[in-house]
């Protein structure tokens, strides 16, 4: 950082400070508002809390966090028959058809979310806005592969070799990235969303050690030498590398059109919310450069904010592990769940992987 940019940063900080003081005095826009936000637990919530809560407090309001997976939050929503115990929630791409079929979400007033300027067009619609991505990869131990005389994998099939039997893991279909990766495996095996059998056959041929449901387990098992390769999102691979494992990501070749897989999360406002304005403010803040940078650096999820993506290359590990080229990101497989019967997928998966 040069002296000039430091000075610039100082001035802009000063300006922000002034602005916030001014706004605090001028109008307490959200006086007494308690905004309930459903999001993931752990560091995700911590980062959002640190980035957003002080700003909201400056406007007179308070944020309460309802932590949990989007699946459990949807279950709560259904039990409450739409009377949501929160104002705004994280939604997985796989849940979009469920939300489209039901009537839980309020239409978004896009005028109130100026940060949409940083998003690609496909990343928002009338009811939800994409706030993060995860790039689903094959994370492999480069040293072990060398030891075994195996070339670096390029796709899932490359893991189906005897030397790797019982030494690989893939996500359970119920875990966060389970459906996206399953979709990737199905396409890579020559199937499609209506015919997942080839994917299930491919999974059988992998002879995995287990189907993981908590990413921390894969980090631990890379460290203990139990596994040589894992299908995980790049954030976990970054974690494993930071923990000292010699790992590297591969964005798996799917077919002629796609290389790599990603899933994305969206944010929506509940129809039953009485804090609509505050919820829109929250989504706008979620998409801001500061929040998106903090999330990318501290939790390893991939931002949707274009300005932030452009800067990620400054970090050598992230540059090595993630696909940062917008053209290539757009060629990653993004499963369209519109015509997918998830319960059918889960049912077929259960019957296929079960060793009862």
């Amino acid at each position: 950082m040069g002296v000039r940019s430091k000075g610039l940063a100082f001035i802009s900080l000063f300006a922000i400070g002034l602005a916030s003081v001014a706004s605090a005095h001028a109008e307490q826009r959200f006086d007494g508002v308690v905004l309930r936000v459903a999001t993931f637990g752990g560091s995700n919530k911590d980062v959002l809390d640190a980035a957003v809560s002080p700003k909201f407090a400056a406007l007179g309001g308070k944020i309460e966090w309802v932590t949990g997976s989007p699946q459990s939050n949807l279950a709560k929503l259904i039990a409450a028959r739409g009377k949501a115990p929160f104002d705004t929630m994280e939604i997985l791409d796989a849940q979009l058809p469920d939300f489209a079929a039901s009537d839980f979400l309020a239409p978004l007033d896009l005028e109130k979310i100026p940060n949409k300027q940083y998003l690609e067009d496909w990343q928002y619609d009338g009811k939800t806005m994409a706030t993060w991505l995860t790039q689903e990869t094959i994370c492999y131990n480069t040293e072990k592969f060398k030891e075994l005389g195996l070339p670096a994998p390029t796709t899932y099939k490359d893991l189906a070799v005897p030397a790797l039997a019982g030494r690989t893991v893939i996500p359970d279909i119920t875990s966060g990235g389970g459906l996206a990766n399953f979709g990737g495996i199905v396409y890579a095996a020559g199937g499609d969303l209506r015919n997942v059998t080839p994917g299930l056959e491919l999974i059988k041929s992998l002879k995995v050690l287990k189907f993981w449901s908590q990413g921390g387990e894969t980090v631990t098992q890379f460290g203990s030498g139990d596994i040589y390769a894992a299908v995980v999102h790049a954030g976990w691979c970054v974690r494993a590398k930071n923990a000292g494992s010699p790992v590297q990501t591969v964005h798996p070749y799917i077919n002629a059109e796609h290389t790599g897989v990603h899933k994305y999360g969206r944010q929506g406002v509940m129809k039953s919310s009485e804090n609509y304005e505050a919820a829109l403010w929250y989504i706008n803040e979620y998409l801001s450069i500061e929040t998106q940078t903090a999330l990318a650096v501290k939790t390893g999820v991939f931002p949707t904010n274009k300005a932030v993506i452009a800067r990620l290359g400054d970090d050598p590990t992230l540059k090595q592990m993630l696909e940062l080229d917008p053209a290539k990101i757009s060629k990653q497989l993004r499963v369209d769940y519109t015509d997918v019967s998830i319960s059918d997928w889960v049912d077929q998966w259960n019957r296929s992987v079960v060793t009862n």
Partner: protein
Amino acid sequence: MSAGETDIGGMDTPQSGLAARAGRAARWRTRQAVQFWLKWIMVALAYLFLHAPLVVVVGASLNGGGQFAAIQFPPVNPSLEWYFEIPARQFEALWLSFVVGAVAAVGAIAIGVPAALGLVRSNLPGKTFIAVVFRSPLQIPAVVSGIAFLQMYYMIGDATGFYAQGTFIGLAIGHVFIAIPYVVGPVTAILQRFDHRLEEAALSLGASPWRTFRRVTLPVIMPGVYAGGLYAFMVSFGDVPLSIFLTAPGYVTYPVELFFALENDFNPAILASGTLVILFCLAIMILVQRVVGLDTLLRVGGTGKGR
């Protein structure tokens, strides 16, 4: 024992009857010894099984290397780093779990003890079925109970205007519900072994029914009550699937906090916080032992002794 060895040494003596008896005695002793050691081997295995993962967790919690390090055992460059990274909300969650656990234990005792007494003592028709009712909260998977309670709270809320979901009361009711069988079980087991004649004797000596209950029955079932209460506490303290649905902002129990923290994120500080829980429980155990004595809590006191 040394006398036994001379016996074996004397096996060669011509008196064959004596030798045979000595042989039998030796076999008897060997069998005694085998049974003695078998018992201790089982005990050792049980403790190894229960505590090995804990030793690894405690050991691994001492790893150095900041919040990006891997879990390793034995620890590499030991430090207490992770202990300073335990998020404050885990302590809040721990406190909530502790309070909910205590409420669950007390509530389950208040409901479970009369239930056990009634089940064993009365001759109501369909007692077997009633016993099944009291045991049923156990068999319903907690995730089903969780959603069912949540739906019930919404229904009651729609009717009365009081929504119990996400409140402490709502959470506590759910925990009491799943904890009841854990009190009914051990108290019933003790009552079934209980000698009625003691009560009859007390009554025939002119003691009032209440006095008989307080002085004779209660001391005998107390160990079951404490054991049941302890277990109610443990079950509540460790519950994940039910609590997921009944917690709300500000009301997240410890295991749920951990479960969510692990779902999409991994911070090795959870090993440190797990170790603190172990130490905390140990401290409570020592305290209980010092103040009242764990054995006096769980041991049949008063009239039950030395029967």
